[in-house]
């Protein structure tokens, strides 16, 4: 065996050892990922299973599969303990969510366009205020807002929940769209201006098509957060007839109180999650892109 061959053999051995070490490491990483994934997903999966179990079976097993699929929790849960069905509360929720999404998208697009593309008096101060409101704890605004809507006689309507979104109150979204707009070269709208396009036309026909992914992100996050909103309706809505899903669920939980009828409550809660889950899976990439560019809290 020549010296060269020995060296080659040693080199081969070392490479193999490295390869094995690399594989073990990869395996270890996957194991961590899987354990975390179980920790994240199993509660949800288990609860999906639990919603088909009878009340007696829920507490007997950590295994998610029910022995038999029982749709009774869904059927009974749908009726709710009130005079309205779950469907009624779903419609209520959408009566809040849909206008809010539309209003937010419009007002936020206009405002961010103003900030990102124009110079105007007090712009610096305005921008500083915008950033300041990002950090403002909302809790300070709650009592006066409640009193203001009370003075207007608009408590127990959807107005307090929806109307503010016409005025770009969510600084997060304005900031996010400004960031997106800044990354779009100004030449694009300059050339439109030379062609005689008005500013609003430039926005609608030139920038909005480019901004579309970001605008969709804004709409989606508004959808999710409004679907989830609990505090708002809790404060402003008082009649059962107008309750959105979140409050109706809380009510069904309170009504159940003790240990009985858990499966009904679980089934309804899961139904309540379906719109959010559907929206998330149909537009996943917008959520992740939106959040990574601006650092929005979800």
């Amino acid at each position, binding site marked *: 065996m020549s010296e060269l061959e020995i060296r080659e053999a040693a080199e081969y051995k070392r490479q193999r050892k490295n390869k094995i070490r690399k594989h073990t490491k990869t395996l270890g990483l996957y194991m961590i990922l899987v354990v975390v994934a179980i920790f994240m997903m*199993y509660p949800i999966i288990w*609860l999906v299973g639990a919603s088909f179990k009878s009340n007696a079976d829920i507490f007997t097993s*950590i295994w998610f599969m029910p022995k038999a699929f029982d749709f009774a929790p869904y059927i009974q849960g749908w009726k709710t303990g009130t005079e309205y069905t779950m469907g009624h509360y779903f419609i209520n929720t959408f009566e809040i969510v849909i206008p809010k999404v539309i209003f937010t998208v419009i007002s936020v697009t*206009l*405002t961010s366009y103003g900030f990102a593309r124009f110079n105007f008096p007090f712009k610096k101060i305005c921008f500083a205020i915008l950033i300041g409101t990002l950090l403002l704890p909302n809790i300070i*605004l709650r009592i006066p807002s409640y009193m203001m809507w009370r003075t207007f006689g608009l408590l127990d309507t959807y107005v307090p929940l929806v109307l503010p979104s016409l005025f*770009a109150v969510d600084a997060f979204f304005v900031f996010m769209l400004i960031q997106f707009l800044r990354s779009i070269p100004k030449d694009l709208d300059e050339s439109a201006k030379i062609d005689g396009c008005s*500013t609003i036309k430039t926005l609608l026909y030139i920038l909005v098509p480019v901004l579309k992914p970001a605008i969709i992100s804004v709409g989606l996050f508004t959808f999710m957060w409004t679907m989830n909103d609990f505090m708002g309706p809790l404060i402003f809505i008082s009649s059962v007839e107008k309750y959105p899903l979140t409050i109706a669920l*809380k009510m069904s939980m309170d009504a159940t109180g003790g240990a009985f009828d858990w499966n009904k409550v679980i089934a309804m809660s899961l139904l309540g999650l379906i719109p*959010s889950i559907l929206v998330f899976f149909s537009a996943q990439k917008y959520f992740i892109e939106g959040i990574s560019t601006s650092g929005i809290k979800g």
Partner: protein
Amino acid sequence: MKKTNITNYKKESWIGLLYITPWIIGFLVFTMYPIVASFYLSFTDYDLLNAPIMVGIDNFKKIFGDKEFLKALGVTGKYVFIVVPLKLAFSLFVAFILNMSLKGINFFRTAYYIPSILGSNVAIAILWKFIFSTDGLVNQVLAVMNIAPVSWFGQPTPALFTIALLRVWEFGSTMVIFLAALKEVPGDLYEAASVDGSNKFRNFFNITIPIITPVIFFNFIMQLIHAFQEFNAPYLVTSGGPMKGTYLLPMLIYDHTFKYYNMGYASAMSWILFIIIMTFTLITFRSSKYWVFYNDNGGES
């Protein structure tokens, strides 16, 4: 020619203002006015029925002798100190693993992200209550491992921990932000370091962490602000109990506002919470020059 330029600019300057008008109105009506009103109210006694009565700083004097307030303040502090570091560390850890180019990362990223999208939903709070109930999933798993069941909602500390865990479970969005930041770390830095004989572990603390400090800073502040205002989780999962062990300040403020109609007193309390949050935010900002590393052009996160 020059003249038209100036008039153009002037005309446009008003156009810009026009575009942000909705936001200006929104800010004045839904932010500025409430802040001023809340400040005024905090010096009054007001029950919604009779006109507010000026009481000077009585509310604030009363607050600092209010045992319920002090207890809630303590619990809130404890909650913030559990949830913020835990959530940040966990999301950074997972983001670090996800950043290694492994196959199937997208699947895991999605799986981790879902809870944070659904997280603040009432449904999840209901489910959480159920998972940690005496015969719930967690105790059943513990039983399999031969560990005695824990009465999660029976004692203050485990109950507070349960709530914190709900928020840690929603680490997805923080993680996605960290992941985006980690992707920006230039790879040649690691190469240079490994030539110098550094290992992965040391790289993480010597290269990765310093470079992403602006993002850590951002996440830290956002989590801090959110944690201090936590309401939904204790309200829905534990109702503040047991023995007010999860009765956070926002819940106390809520009760004073909408249960006892002490609008003035509640406003004063929300101002104290506001000042606490702002103090922490400012300290973080101030200290950031010692630990936040910015690229030479600065301010970028």
